[in-house]
């Protein structure tokens, strides 16, 4: 395949105080086998050669498991491709002549650090509020020694696949973190090791989520559609159910 000639519309912003703006870059002669981030590396090298400041963006493992990359491409977090992070998105998905809009993950809760980098530590604070088990649960072989229903084990495993990238928040029309919180809560609530603290965990994580100022879920399932790990919105239904039960138990106990 011939190399691509693209136009990039990139959000540039010096720091949190700066007024950001969209700037236009030519991305000429991009190989189709490059990943989206490699394309940005190529563009950045050219910017640096010309004496400019490169486009700042978050990235780490570049193999889809760390949850660090966080670009909104043409309005969709991680791009139009389903079930992949932006580091796994390849330039063969684009056509020569395309104009690509690249923006950060938008939410009031994620302060912008620079260009396309945002501070997602609100998600860490939610996990710190209840996304853990208080006791030692042993090593890997101890987990295998516990009988766990297959359906529950699989549901917990699927929820645990969440890499905490915040694409769900970025895609949600209301900037809600429900898919993230529900996955982190479900992953422990399903399992016998996590079940004894289910009520405490559910209340603490939802309260921290509300405290951070995320929006409210309106059941539009944009989160599920963009999630690179394809976390199911079933987890949100479960969180709603668990929260109602936990609130009731707390009120009457």
């Amino acid at each position: 395949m011939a190399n691509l000639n693209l136009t990039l519309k990139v959000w540039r912003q010096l720091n949190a105080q700066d007024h950001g703006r969209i700037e236009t870059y030519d991305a000429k002669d991009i190989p189709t086998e490059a990943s989206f981030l490699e394309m940005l590396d190529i563009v950045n090298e050219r910017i640096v050669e010309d004496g400019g400041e490169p486009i700042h963006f978050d990235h780490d493992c570049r193999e889809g498991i760390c949850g660090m990359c966080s670009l909104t491409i043409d309005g969709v977090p991680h791009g139009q491709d389903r079930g992949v992070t932006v580091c796994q998105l390849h330039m063969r998905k684009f056509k020569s002549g395309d104009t690509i809009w690249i923006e950060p993950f938008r939410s009031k809760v994620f302060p912008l650090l620079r260009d396309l980098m945002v501070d997602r530590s609100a998600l860490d604070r939610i996990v710190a509020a209840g996304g853990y088990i208080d006791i030692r649960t042993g090593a890997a072989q101890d987990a295998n020694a516990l009988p766990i229903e297959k359906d529950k084990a699989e549901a917990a495993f699927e929820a645990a696949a969440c890499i905490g990238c915040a694409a769900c928040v970025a895609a949600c029309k209301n900037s809600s973190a429900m898919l993230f919180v529900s996955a982190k809560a479900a992953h422990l609530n399903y399992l016998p090791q996590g079940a004894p603290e289910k009520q405490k965990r559910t209340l603490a994580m939802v309260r921290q989520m509300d405290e951070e100022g995320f929006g409210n879920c309106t059941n539009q399932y944009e989160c599920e559609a963009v999630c690179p790990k394809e976390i199911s919105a079933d987890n949100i239904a479960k969180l709603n159910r668990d929260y109602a039960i936990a609130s009731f138990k707390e009120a009457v106990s």
Partner: protein
Amino acid sequence: MSALSCCIHSAPCRFWNSSIGKKIIVALTGIVLVGFLAGHLIGNLLIFQGEHAFNDYAHFLQTMLHGYGVWIARIFLLTSLVLHVTATIQLTIANRAARNIEYQRPATVTASASSRMMIWSGSTILAFIVFHIFHYTVRVSPELAEIGAENPHAMVIAGFSNILVSLFYLIAMTLLCSHLSHGVGSIFQTLGLRSHKTALPIDLFSRAFALFIWLGFISIPIAIMVFGFGK
């Protein structure tokens, strides 16, 4: 401890002030309102059964439980409506605030148009409810009040003979259909009763119910305006 801080820390207050708690209130009051719509429609369709059936039904509503029944229903429905509207307005304000900077190039992957205009379809329906109550329940028009006291069936026919009334009714019912197509399915998700196995039946039920309500309600003004029913 002042009375106010005591209230703020009470369990119902805490539930109301939490994101999920408030949504559960929206879902539960939604069930009440959806149930009312189904009952109201079935009652209204008695108009096609004839003047006698419809007027008997109106008389029954007014006199059940020695006349207290209608007021118990009204208070219950009004409370549900106020909670539903207050909660959704507060939620919408919080949702708008949570994204302070919009995307320069926004996109929608899967959210339906109905789901994105819930606050607008809801506001129009609220305006319609106010109008509808003044129109047919309070009967601010002396002419309609006179007919209505004798013959509710004739009052409905006379009311819908006004083209503006029928037009507003059609617009409101169409937006109600849109509101329900997202709202009914959302009840299941918010109450934690939806899963990938039941998602499709719930979505289909939600749309079918919305369509049933829409066709049922609009059939009355259309029969009167287009086919000259009752004239």
